């Protein structure tokens, strides 16, 4: 069986890639960049705002937007034409971040059992443990995308020297709330699970609260997270506070 020609299409970004019969990816870059991430967020917001009949769901990952559609109601050639029209309407990589985002400040302990691989990570980043914690907590990090687990945000980006590779072997499980790092990003685990990233801290933050009828998912892509270093006993005390001591403010 000859392969359909369409299989071999892979033009330079921004690029439309069909994902099966009823999905379309709009990719803004082949490597993570701040511009591509802002483009993906803004482009998805525009598609949502246009509210076309036949679009079932949209999402973003690090540097692409995804559109799920009903191929009967919205033929993909029509969808592609409309997406191309929107793509060419402006320079999406120059887009601003979404308005009305939330900045979270989340207490985190970087002590003892809460931070089993902090020393390794600091060494790989070329600094002392104290300086590493200061740098991790220095600036708010942006939720580039949610994925892997519900409400779990890829937070970035840290300075270049935090471009740590993943571990060769997976850590079988880190607990919910664990702070892990790799590839200039930080993740606060929203569930417990395996990871190839290094655990450098611990929070009591719950990114996924399925029992909360109003807001089961705490963070949204584009939100910011600033970690605030607290002692291990302080973290335990905060566990009983509303939102485990995390506070939020509207920004942007």
């Amino acid at each position, binding site marked *: 069986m000859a*392969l359909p020609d369409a299989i071999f299409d892979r033009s330079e970004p921004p690029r439309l890639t069909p*994902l*099966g019969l*009823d999905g379309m990816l709009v990719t803004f870059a082949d490597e993570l960049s701040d511009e591509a991430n802002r483009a993906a967020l803004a482009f998805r917001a525009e598609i949502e705002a246009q509210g076309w009949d036949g679009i079932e769901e949209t999402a973003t990952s690090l540097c692409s937007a995804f559109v799920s559609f009903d191929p009967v109601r919205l033929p993909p050639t029509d969808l592609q034409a409309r997406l191309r029209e929107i793509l060419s309407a402006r320079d999406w990589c120059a887009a601003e971040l979404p308005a009305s985002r939330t900045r979270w400040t989340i207490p985190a302990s970087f002590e003892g059992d809460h931070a089993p691989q902090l020393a390794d990570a600091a060494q790989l980043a070329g600094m002392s443990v104290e300086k590493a914690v200061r740098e991790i907590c220095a600036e708010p990090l942006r939720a580039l995308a*949610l994925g892997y687990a519900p409400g*779990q945000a890829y937070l970035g980006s840290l300075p270049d020297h935090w471009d740590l590779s993943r571990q060769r072997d997976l850590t079988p499980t880190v607990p919910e709330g664990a702070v892990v790092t790799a590839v200039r990003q930080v993740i606060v685990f929203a569930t417990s699970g395996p990871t190839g990233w290094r655990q450098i801290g611990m929070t009591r933050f719950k990114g996924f609260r399925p029992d909360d009828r109003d807001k089961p998912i705490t963070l949204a892509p584009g939100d910011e997270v600033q970690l605030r270093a607290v002692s291990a006993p302080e973290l335990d005390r905060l566990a009983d506070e509303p939102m485990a001591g995390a506070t939020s403010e509207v920004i942007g």
Partner: protein
Amino acid sequence: MTSLTVLKIGRGASVQDLGRPGHLAQGLSRGGAADRLAILEGAALLGQSPDLAAIELTALGGSFTIDAPTRIALTGAPMRARLGDASLRWSASYRMEPGEVLTLGPAKRGVWSYLHVGGGIATEPLMGSRAAHQSLGLGPILQEGDVLPLGTDGGGPVERHLEPQDRFAGGPIRLLPSAHTALFSHDDLERFQSTSFTRDQRGNRQGVRLSHDGAPFATKGQLGLPSEVVVPGDIQMTGEGTPYILLPECQTTGGYPRIGSVVPVDLPCAAQAGPGATLDFRFVSREEAMESHMSEADILSALEGATRPLLRDPREMQDLLSYQLISGVTAGDFVEGEDT
């Protein structure tokens, strides 16, 4: 409220419906029944909404009682099925009375079997669905002794039968391109189409592993790809180049290369191929895929039109009778003829 009691249950059984769409951007995959067609079949047999929840059983099956007269339907992978002393056909609906024990399993072919009840399983919905997302611990995993509430049954037919689409023994599966198809070499894509894959023992609601003879499948720079959205039906390569078919509980984003995506109407067949079954993949054009495509609403109406009154087959009754005369105990083989 009517309730169903789980007397025995195989590992991994759970309450499932069509899942919770709309949360992809938040990192939560839709989930829902591993064989969505089976949910539609149950809705057609009972003449009720496809949004009602059913029990998804793994090959071991289970046994159940109810505390008020209830309509039931059995769909998905065909199992040995008995209601009290009576042998039941699969892909059919019946009335079940209090005091009767429904015993299902083991599966004859396929992976996922479904027990539907009139009014649906009425456990508390979470985020718009009753579907258990097992890898997240969302919703209960069924255990012996569980008592599940049933919704109010608006009434409807019983003793109906469907000739189900045979999807329990592997076979040809049609693919369309996915996120990374263009990164594979022409030779590897041709080889993927000419290779027979075997459904491995390793599999769960996140995905099933395929084994094959020959070299692994890999792309250039495959460990440095930025993550893109992942959907059920995508065929993803591990770092070692082993393909997995992703199922409803797959992660929402992933960076390992995906060679193709199963067309939606073939996905039940891919999910129901039991361990050892052979799957052959073929890329098709979008036009060819669309020719056989049906929305789930259209599939449901077609199924509703295809249900037939359940007629007792005299041969079955004779078999059943002779079998019971011999020993009264089953030998582990299903006593009825193939009914699918």
